[in-house]
């Protein structure tokens, strides 16, 4: 087990026999199996047990884009990694301490990540010749000595499960499907997890099929009892609850937190919300979640395509609702023209892009940060929009509220860049008190605003007369008497909003739209540099917050100084960013793209920032960033 602090061992009577209990500060478990084996559910349940127990935790699902890839193949392997600890952790863990492999494909796909000495629990029932051959094993790895460096536990999970659920009268196939709950039961026993939650969950989930519910509960208990009664497992482990900041916590995924942020936006703005969207992985869960909250005044419109989704959202905003659209990957490309219309008509609109591997269809279920430049610039003409990115699953809530606030205050489309890792990952969330949420109420235009007397629009309504502070234009809703006006995608004359082809007016309007976005008030960045002596600054954005933060901790533990700054606001940048960057002799920017933020930073601040990039569809590992930072720190000292 990976524990930096020494593991305390005690031998206690654990039920019917003596087992040794080892105390650990943190553990990473990876459940891996075929797509049809229910690994995501297993991981989810284990996570809920850890949350209920009070551990800090972070999770990372990893699954293929195919719904059911051919059974038993490498392409069909699905896994779920959960990291839980007795202190605050930042990532789902680089490598597992425990790997549960439900079949040869899962073993082959994941074994390289298990460090020597790691625990491997294998479902031996799947290791028949045919299955081995399917994934290119000539010899049975369970027998040929190739796994000798691990602590291997061979368990005939399918056979034991079928035996355990016999009383339910289920057919063999249905019975065997419960083997994931057997694995969960075994792991729950090993780590002293509470079990009531899982049993309750299973009975609720299969409420309409009581015999299936019963079989799953029986399999779960059989896994537990297997650990308890067989001699195979001499040691069990304990990870104490984490000492997090006081308060009430729950576990939450990024997509759920984002959806809650939109619900909270509806409540805090007192506006109805219309989510216009089209299903796309991994953003669809935002639609699924929001479709449940009609009682909060949320309408979800599943449109005929991405363009119609954002179009309906913009139409709703025009009518005085908060228009929201959500997408991923190629979907954001399709929305570009309507974002441009939103910029031109200066209406509020929240555009959520859950980034995934690209280009084109790319890697639908994998993560990436490669839409930043598209978010910034991917439209025709000078078309600035504010851009924000959440740094962790729970942070999606606050980021969504902030995106809404900007959209409503400045009457502009706002791009919120989540990503696959944040969207599907989960962590504990300190449930906010709604009394602390920001006020998002808006004022619609109700009266003519043109100065009395002669001149332009005398005493009438000027739809493009701006608020001197925010440069926002009035939001005048259809139905408001006397304020009838026309808006559209053609260039607007300043103030009147009429069509204008005047060269000077166009130049002025381009600059006004830019100035409005540049002038958005965003909080300054804070620098994390406990020693106050760092010469190297690591700058990140979005979901890499976890691995960067973990790498900084490690580097500092080794006696070095490194400063960390993480950006939530990518457009406009926080006002103090340039000054902060100038204070360091070296700036490193790790990104899951080919250096998009680095390009913006270098162009904007003339800072010789160095990029560290990886575009593998997976989050950074703390270890690799630790090495990058160590090299940088040492380089500075050598120079």
């Amino acid at each position, binding site marked *: 087990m990976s524990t930096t602090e020494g593991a305390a061992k005690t031998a206690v009577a654990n039920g019917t026999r003596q087992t040794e209990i080892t105390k650990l500060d943190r553990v990473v478990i990876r459940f891996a199996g075929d797509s049809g084996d229910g690994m995501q559910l297993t991981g989810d349940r284990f996570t809920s047990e850890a949350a209920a127990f009070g551990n800090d935790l972070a999770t990372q699902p990893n699954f293929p884009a195919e719904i059911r890839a051919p059974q038993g193949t490498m392409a069909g392997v699905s896994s779920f990694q959960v990291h839980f600890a007795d202190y605050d952790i930042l990532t789902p863990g680089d490598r597992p301490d425990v790997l549960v492999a439900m079949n040869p494909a899962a073993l082959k796909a994941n074994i390289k990540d298990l460090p020597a000495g790691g625990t491997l629990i294998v479902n031996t029932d799947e290791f028949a010749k045919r299955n081995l051959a399917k994934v290119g094993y000539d010899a049975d790895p369970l027998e040929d000595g190739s796994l000798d460096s691990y602590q291997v536990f061979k368990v005939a999970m399918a056979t034991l499960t079928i035996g355990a659920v016999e009383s339910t009268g289920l057919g063999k196939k249905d019975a065997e499907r419960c083997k994931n709950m057997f694995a969960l039961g075994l792991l729950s026993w090993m780590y002293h997890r509470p079990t009531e939650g899982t049993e309750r969950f299973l009975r609720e989930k299969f409420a309409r099929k009581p015999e299936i519910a019963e079989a799953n509960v029986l399999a779960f208990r059989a896994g537990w009892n297997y650990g308890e009664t067989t001699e195979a497992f001499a040691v069990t482990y304990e990870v104490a609850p984490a000492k997090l900041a006081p308060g009430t*916590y729950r576990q939450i995924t990024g997509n759920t937190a984002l959806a809650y942020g939109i619900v909270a936006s509806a409540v805090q703005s007192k506006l109805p919300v*219309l989510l216009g969207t089209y299903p796309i992985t991994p953003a669809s869960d935002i639609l699924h979640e929001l479709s449940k909250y009609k009682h909060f005044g949320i309408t979800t419109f599943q449109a*005929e395509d991405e363009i119609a989704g954002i*179009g309906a959202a913009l139409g709703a905003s025009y009518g005085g609702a908060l228009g929201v659209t959500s997408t991923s990957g190629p979907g954001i490309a399709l929305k570009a023209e309507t974002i441009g219309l939103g910029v031109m008509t200066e209406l509020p609109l929240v555009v959520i892009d859950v980034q995934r591997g690209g280009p084109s269809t790319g890697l639908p279920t994998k993560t990436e940060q490669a839409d930043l430049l598209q978010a910034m610039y991917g439209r025709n003409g000078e078309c600035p929009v504010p851009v924000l990115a959440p740094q962790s699953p729970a942070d999606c809530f606050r980021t969504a509220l902030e995106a809404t606030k900007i959209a409503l205050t400045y009457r502009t489309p706002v791009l919120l860049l989540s990503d696959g890792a944040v969207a599907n990952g989960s962590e504990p969330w300190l449930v906010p008190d709604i009394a602390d949420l920001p006020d998002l109420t808006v004022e619609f235009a109700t009266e003519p605003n043109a100065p009395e007397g002669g001149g332009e629009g005398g005493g009438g309504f000027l739809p493009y007369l701006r608020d001197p502070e925010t440069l926002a234009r009035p939001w005048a809703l259809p139905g408001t008497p006397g304020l*009838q006006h026309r808006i559209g995608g053609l260039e607007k004359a300043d103030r009147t909003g009429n069509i204008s082809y005047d060269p000077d007016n166009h130049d002025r309007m381009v600059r006004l739209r830019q100035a409005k976005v540049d002038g958005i008030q965003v909080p300054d960045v804070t620098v994390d540099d406990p020693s106050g002596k760092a010469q190297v600054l690591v700058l990140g954005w979005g979901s890499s917050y976890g691995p960067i933060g973990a790498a900084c901790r490690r580097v500092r533990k080794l006696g070095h100084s490194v400063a960390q700054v993480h950006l939530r606001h990518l457009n406009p940048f926080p006002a103090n960013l340039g000054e902060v960057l100038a204070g360091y002799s070296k700036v490193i920017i790790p990104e899951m793209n080919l250096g998009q933020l680095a390009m913006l930073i270098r162009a904007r601040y003339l800072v010789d920032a160095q990029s560290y990039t990886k575009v593998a569809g997976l989050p950074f590992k703390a270890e690799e960033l630790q090495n990058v930072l160590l090299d940088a720190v040492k380089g500075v000292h050598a120079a």
Partner: protein
Amino acid sequence: MTAVDLGLPQLGGLDLVPTTDEPQKAKDYKSDQEVRWCPGCGDYVVLNAVQSFLPTLGLKRENIVFVSGIGCSSRFPYYMNTYGMHSIHGRAPAIATGLAVSRPDLSVWVVTGDGDALSIGGNHLIHALRRNVNLKILLFNNRIYGLTKGQYSPTSEEGKITKSTPLGSLDHPFNPVSLALGAEASFVGRALDSDRKGLTEVLRQAAAHRGSALVEIYQNCPIFNDGAFDVLKEAGQAEERLIPLVDGEPIRFGSPGPDGLGEYGVVRSGFAGLEVAKVSEVGEDAVIVHDSSHHDPSYAFALSRLSTQDLSHVVTGVFRNVERSTYDDLARRQVAQAKESKTADLQALLRGKDTWTVA
């Protein structure tokens, strides 16, 4: 905005839109913007017809919205003293859908053209019709691309010589009425720009209809496709070609026969089709009596197939006018019912079911 309570689907098209007792005139609907279509463009005639027609509805002007796409006709909203949005190419039905769903108190009109609605925006059009969103869609069909200066459109006749098709266009055109009926539109009509009376009648029925209404308007583009519909306007030709639909009346056209009605009639043909026949040959009783409320869309579809690419026959009037639940009414009802049955407790939502406390 506060949603109004819904009764489905007995509502009329405008029942939730506030009215005014103040008399209105056509000029109340004219904006201060100079109209910039080419001289002689059919769009002027339609604009005038709409501006003269709207006062008869007695609605508050501020509760009327025109949403358009891109193309000559899509400049329409700028000339209307109502609310309006000149949006992007092909997307007006989608934008108007979002508006109509969130604002039951608005009368939402979409102005589009044959390129806007049937090429780039074909997808949005059929889905708006399928959902039956409460929108009135005016499709100005001039069978050409005007704004981009004269390329053939998805309604141009086969073999059309244009700037982009010097050897003749190759595509088979859409019949917009057939397309709309294929999408199960609940209201479909057609009128000629020059026929103020016919156009106004179709607009009147469209406005009163709850749900999507597609009105195809044959519109002359004197610059790039001049005279495209002349054969439907010239005395001596027009009556032989135009087949006007009037509810409850036998479908008769052509120069008057002995009974004072047209010498031709529309009669059943084959398995499910219709055809034109001489009434004197088939007898009066064989002629179909028009019923736009006929629920099976195949009747209206068969009518739409009487219109031909070469305009040797063109059916006008209201093809179909049936009651069907509208998407926006249903969507609002779901929200209203959810609000009634559940309290919107944000704190409880955020807290969820499984929490733990750190002291």
